[in-house]
C-alpha cells in the first residue's frame, strides 16, 4: 500500500512536469522550498544587521538586491520571508482543507436539517471579505501569522465547501454510496472512502489556488497592519516597508513584488495543470 501511494505521487509529478505550466510551477515551488530551508542556516547578511551608511542602496556585491530604508539587506529579508510565506501557505492549505471538508461533510449529511442549515450558514458567511475576518481576529489576538492563517482558512474553507459541494453531493447520493450504506457502512465510512476521493480533484485544484491567494493575502494584510507582526520577515513585510517610497526608490519594491507575482502565478498554474491533468485522466 505504502509503495503504491508513493508511486502515485511520482506519477502525478510526472504528469504535471509534462505540461509547460506545470513544469514552471514545479520549478518555482522547488526553488521556494529550497530557499526557505537555506534561509534557516544562511542568509547573505544577518537579518538584524543594518548598514546605516547604505540605506536604499543600489544592488552591489555585498547587497545583491540592494538595501531598504533601514539599510537591511533586501535579499536576506526576502529569503527569510519565503519561509514565513511557506508556513502561511502550508497552514492555510491544511486548515482551510480541514474546514472545507468538515463543512462538505455536514452539507451532504443524510440529516436534511443539518445539511440545509450548513448550506445557509456557508452562504451567509461567504460574503464576509477576508480582510474583515482578519481585522476581527486582530482585536483579541493582535497582528500575527496566526491571524493571517486563521482569516485565510476561514474564507477559503467556506469557498472550498461551496465549490466542492456539487461533486460531493453527486458522490454522496450515488448508487455506490447507497449500496455501501445498505451493506451496513457508516456515514463516516461513506464520506471518507467514497465522497472524499471523488472530490479530490476539485479539492486539489482549489487548495493549490488558495495557497497562492494566501501569499497575496499576507502581502495585503501586512500592508494594512493586521498581518505578520513587526520585525517578522515576510514578503508582505518587505513590500510594505518599501512601498512608501516607491516614487523615489522603485527598485526596492520591485524585488518583493516580483517574488510575490512569481509565487502566485506558479501556484495558479499548478492548479490549472492539476485540473487539465485530471481532465485527461492521467492523475
Amino acid at each position, binding site marked *: 500500500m505504502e509503495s503504491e501511494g508513493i508511486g502515485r505521487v511520482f506519477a502525478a509529478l510526472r504528469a504535471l512536469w509534462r505540461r509547460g505550466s506545470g513544469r514552471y510551477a514545479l520549478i518555482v515551488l522547488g526553488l521556494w522550498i529550497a530557499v526557505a530551508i537555506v534561509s534557516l542556516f544562511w542568509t547573505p547578511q544577518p537579518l538584524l544587521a543594518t548598514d546605516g551608511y547604505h540605506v536604499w542602496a543600489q544592488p552591489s556585491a555585498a547587497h545583491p538586491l540592494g538595501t531598504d530604508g533601514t539599510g537591511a539587506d533586501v535579499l536576506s529579508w526576502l529569503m527569510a520571508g519565503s519561509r514565513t510565506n511557506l508556513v502561511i501557505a502550508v497552514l492555510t492549505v491544511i486548515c482551510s482543507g480541514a474546514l472545507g471538508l468538515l463543512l462538505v461533510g455536514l452539507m451532504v449529511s443524510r440529516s436534511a436539517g443539518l445539511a440545509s442549515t450548513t448550506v445557509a450558514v456557508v452562504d451567509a458567511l461567504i460574503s464576509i471579505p477576508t480582510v474583515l475576518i482578519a481585522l476581527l481576529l486582530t482585536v483579541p489576538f493582535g497582528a500575527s501569522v496566526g491571524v493571517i492563517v486563521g482569516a485565510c482558512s476561514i474564507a477559503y474553507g467556506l469557498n472550498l465547501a461551496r465549490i466542492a459541494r456539487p461533486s460531493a453531493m453527486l458522490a454522496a447520493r*450515488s448508487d455506490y454510496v447507497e*449500496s455501501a450504506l445498505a451493506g*451496513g457502512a457508516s456515514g463516516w465510512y461513506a464520506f471518507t472512502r467514497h465522497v472524499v476521493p*471523488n472530490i479530490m480533484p476539485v479539492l486539489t485544484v482549489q487548495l493549490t489556488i488558495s495557497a497562492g491567494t494566501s501569499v497575496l493575502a499576507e502581502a495585503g494584510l501586512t500592508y494594512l497592519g493586521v498581518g505578520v507582526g513587526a520585525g517578522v520577515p515576510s514578503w508582505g513585510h518587505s513590500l510594505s516597508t518599501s512601498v512608501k517610497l516607491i516614487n523615489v526608490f522603485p527598485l526596492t519594491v520591485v524585488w518583493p513584488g516580483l517574488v510575490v507575482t512569481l509565487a502566485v502565478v506558479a501556484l495558479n498554474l499548478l492548479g490549472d495543470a492539476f485540473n487539465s491533468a485530471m481532465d485527461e485522466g492521467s492523475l
Partner: protein
Amino acid sequence: MNALLSASHIVKSFPVAGRGRQQVLFDVSASVDAGECLAVIGGSGSGKSTLTRIMLGLETADSGTVTYEGSPVVAGRGGRIAGSSEGFRALRHESGLVFQNPFASLDPRWAVFRSVAEPLVLAGGAGRGNVSRAELVEKVSKALRTAGLEPGDMLSRRPRELSGGQAQRVAIARAIVASPKVILADEPMSAIDVTVRVQILDALAAIRAERPDMALIIVSHDLGVVQHLADRILVLHNGHVVESGPVGAVLGHPQADYTRDLVAAASL
C-alpha cells in the same frame, strides 16, 4: 407467511412541489420466497422501484409492514424503518443491490477488486483483519466468474476502462459476493445495448442456477427479460397491483387491460 421477504399494505406518497403530496403506492402487498424470482413490472411512474426499495429497507413507507424472515424491517405507525430491529440488520447484510446504470453504481475512483470486495469488508465489521486478502481475492474472483467475467487483469481496472456490459456484470458480482439471501435488481438492463442485455440475462440466470436458495427481485418494464428469469410476476400500474401470478399465466393469459397492452407491446 413463510415468505423470505414480504411487504403488506404498503402506502407511500411523495411531496410534490406546490401540489401537496402525490401518492405512488396504494395498499400494495408483495412477497418473495427463498430461491424464487419475483418480477415487478410496470411503466415509469408505476411505483415499481419505490415498492422494491421499501421492501429492501432503503426507503420508509407511509404505512404498511415489511418483514424479513419473520422480523419486521419496516413497521409500526408511519411505516418507519425499524433501524434497530433484527430483521433490518439481517437484511442489510443479507441483501445485494444491482442498479440501472452500472457506471453510477461503481465508485469511479475504485478498482474493480475493491468495489466487489466492499460488501465483504463491510460485513467483516470494524476488525477488517477478519478477512484475509487472499480470501478476499478468492471470493471476488469467484463472484466475477459467476457473473461471467474472467478476473485476471479485470481486478485492477477502473470503471472507465470497462464496457457497459462488463461494468454491469461487475456490479452484479458485487451484489452476490457476500452470498446474500435476496438480491434486488432495479432495471438492470435498461441502460444497456440489446446484445449486452443478453449477457446480463445469462449472468443472472447462471447465478440463479448456482445459488438455488437466493431470492431475486427484478424490476423491469421489459417483459422479454422477465419471461426468461422470473417465476412470478407482479404488475403495477399507477401504484396499484393490476395483476400477479406465475409467469406463464400472466404472460400467456393476461387478465388486466394494462397487462395485455404490455404483452402486445413486447411482442415483435
